Structures are given as C-alpha cells and as structure tokens.
C-alpha cells in the first residue's frame, strides 16, 4: 500500500511563497484561490516574538470530513490517500468547505482573471468545469500518476512530485510515501519531532509539520 503525505519543515520555511506561486502556475487557479498558502504567524509577546511561516492547504486526511458530508460523492479518497473532487459530480453546495477544519476548499462561481479580462495564457488554461464547484489541492495527483506510469518516484523525481515541493527554495516541503520506511518522508519523521494541524479533531491529516530534532536517547 501507498500513503502519499507531505511534510513542511517549519525550521526551514522562509515564507517566500514560491510554493504558492508554483501551485497557482501549475494548476491555473484563479485570483485569490491558493491551494497552497503560507501563513505568516507572529508568536509570543514583545520583545520575545518569533515569526513562523506555516504552509497550509488540503491535508489529505485519512478520515476526511469533507468526504463524509459530500452529498454527491464528488469528494473521494483514493487508495493512496489523496482526496479528490470529481468536478462532474460536485453540485457546489459548499458543505465540504464548512466541514473542512483547514479552510482548504474554494468555490468560484464566475470566471475571474488577474487583470479583469482573460490574458492569452488564462484563456488557454481556463476550465469551465471548475466554476460553481469545490476545488482544492490535489497533491498534483496528475503529476504523481503520470510520473508513476513512467516508473518515476514521487518525492524524488521532479516530474512525479507536486509543484509546490519542487519549487521550495529551502527544501522545507517534502513529499513521499509514508508506508515506505525508506522514503524521504518516513526518514524525516523518524528523525524529527512533528505535529499535525488540529489533530484533536481526529481527521488524521496527511500533512506533517516538523519543529525540532528528536531527543537523542542517552
């Protein structure tokens, strides 16, 4: 079995938003729709203030509330853990959006373009199917699937890896198979302390945040 997950190393992320730009470019999302966002958080009280950059988006939960509430079965979870939306089934009720604890879902009712009217590149990549339905990060499942078909390894080979991970200038984002104990993500999780967002809700996100090295046993 395979379980695709993503890792964000909070010690490495510098908040450059290149992942956001890469995602928007790769997936042709309209203005104000960011499937991969980076939060800029201030933590602490003056003068002991820290700044933390936190990449967020669809967490591809093992127990996704968006899938359970979806009345049309448009939202599904693949065997490899990627949560998908079938744009032909979705009715755009937005129930998934209010059920998602990570604010990862968007709905665009009318076509929007960066400069009002569509630029040539936007005309080419505009997809009517995405209007009036829920959209979100796909973990670039098309890239993953195409890469696997070519015998490539997602998370290692760029052609098979999500765009945000490829673009990260600090290698803060990593992608890989959690079930493979030798994978990059399994190794990182073995060596570091991590948490998942809003873990208390029991959604079992497939997105891990590294925050420190593991304590070395004496």
């Amino acid at each position: 079995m395979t379980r695709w997950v993503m890792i964000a190393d909070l010690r490495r992320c510098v908040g450059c938003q290149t992942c956001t730009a890469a995602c928007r470019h790769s997936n042709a999302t309209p203005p104000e729709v960011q499937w991969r966002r980076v939060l800029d958080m201030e933590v602490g009280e003056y003068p002991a203030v820290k700044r933390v950059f936190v990449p967020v988006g669809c967490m591809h939960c093992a127990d996704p509330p968006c899938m359970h509430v979806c009345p049309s079965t448009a939202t599904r979870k693949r065997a490899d853990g990627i949560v998908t939306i079938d744009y032909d089934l979705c009715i755009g009720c937005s129930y998934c959006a209010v059920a998602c604890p990570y604010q990862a879902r968007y709905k665009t009712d009318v076509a929007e373009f960066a400069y009002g009217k569509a630029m040539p590149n936007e005309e080419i990549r505009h997809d009517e199917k995405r209007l009036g339905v829920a959209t979100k990060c796909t973990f670039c499942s098309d890239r993953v699937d195409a890469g696997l078909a070519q015998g490539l390894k997602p998370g290692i080979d760029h052609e098979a890896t999500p765009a945000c991970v490829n673009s990260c200038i600090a290698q803060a984002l990593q992608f890989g198979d959690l079930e493979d104990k030798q994978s990059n993500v399994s190794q990182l999780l073995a060596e570091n302390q991590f948490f998942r967002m809003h873990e208390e809700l029991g959604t079992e996100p497939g997105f891990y945040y590294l925050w420190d090295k593991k304590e070395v046993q004496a």
Partner: protein
Amino acid sequence: MSYGPRPWQQTNWDWRAAANFMLGGTGAGLMIAAVFVQNPLPHAVLAAMLLIGGGLGTVWLEIGRKLRAIHVFFNPQTSWMTRESFAALLLFVLSSIALFLDSRQVLVAAALAALAFVYCQARILRAAKGIPAWRAPQVVALVMATALVEGSGLLMVMNPDLLVISLFTAAVIARAVAWSAYWTALKQAGSRTALETAGKALVQIGTIAPLALVLGAYFLPQAAALAGIAALLTGWRLKYVLVTRAALNQGFALPQLPVRGTR
C-alpha cells in the same frame, strides 16, 4: 500566544442556507405539531409543505451547479444532506397522500418523516467539523427543540387549542434547556459574541414572555398567537445568526514552535 490568522466567519453559507434551517425547521415542527390537533388542519399541513419547500428552494439558489441538484441524493451512506433530502422527499409524498386521503395515520407517518428531516438538519450542522459553533453536540437538541417551538408556535396562531398550547409550552421549556446547555458548551469567544444578543432575546422574548402570554391566554385568547409569534421570530433570529454570523472557523494553531539554530 500566536498571532496568525484568527478564526474568521465562514462565507460559504449565507442567508440562503440559514433560510433552509429557519423555514425547514418551522415547517417540520408544524407538521409534527399538526398531529396533536384533534381534527388535523389541511392548511397547516399545506403550510408546512410550503415552508419546507421554500427552505429547500433557497438552498437550491445557493448551490453552484443548479441543474445537477439531483446529485444531492447520491450519498445516503454518510451525508446528512443526502439523508435530509430523502426525508424531505418522503415527507412530501406522505403529506400529499395524507391530504388526499384525509388520513390521520398517514399524517402521523408524515410527522415522523418531518422529525427525521429536522434531525438531519441538526446533524448537518453537527457534522461540519470546520465550525466549532456548529459541531458542538448540543446543537442537535437545540435545532430540534427550536423547530418544535416554531412549528407549534405557528400552529397556535392558526388554532390555539389546549393540546397545541400544552405542546408549545413544553417545547419552549425544552428549547430553553437546550439553549442553556449549548451556551454553556460553546467556548469560542467570537461565536459567543455573535450569539449573545440573539440568545438573550431567545430567553427573554422567546421563552419568558411566551410562557407569561400562554398563561394570559386563559383570559385573552389572542395572547396565545402573540406568544407563538414571539417564540417563532426569536428562534428564526437565533438560527440566522448561528449560520451567518456565529459560524467562525477555528483558524490555525501551532502546538509547537520551530526550534531553529543550535540549542
């Protein structure tokens, strides 16, 4: 203390979704209450159907792909929205048969479908994990009691007989208890602020005043209608605020901070 994006109001569901909970709840409550009348009133059953239909109609206005609305029936396994749709369908069929045959037995079955409908509505909110004010378990009793108050309150305007007044009184007390439990459990500051005024109105104008007016109805029958309207409007206001203004998400939180550099 972190200062990232704080919880903010969801904007996916607006007055159209709120109207479904308001009209649908009242319609379902009316259908249930109608069973308690000695001689069921056809216009009460019709009004219930219109209210529920109106609520579903407003939701239909909100969905992005209106011509695919039939897809709402595709996931009865896990989706309370699908189950609500099936309950509504059953309710309409049974109500129509009850009206056509003038059958009390079928009307009771329709009332059970109405009960299922309003339960599904409550569970729709409960299943929305992204909104702390909705996912609270206490929201189920609150939504159901509110529907019963609204329905019996409306029926009291149409037909203020003793059985309906008794049902209304019990429902008003049940709603006050459900609201108290919900309010005690609700921790999110933003939601509490948004709901505070509507909650006070529910207690004062929607509970205490109607109970006093019901007592007064022994002397002045019109007081019962006034009680019903007060309870109905305060319930609607509470649900409207709950869906449109108190529905804050929980933002993002960091249980740990990154440890950078050498220690």
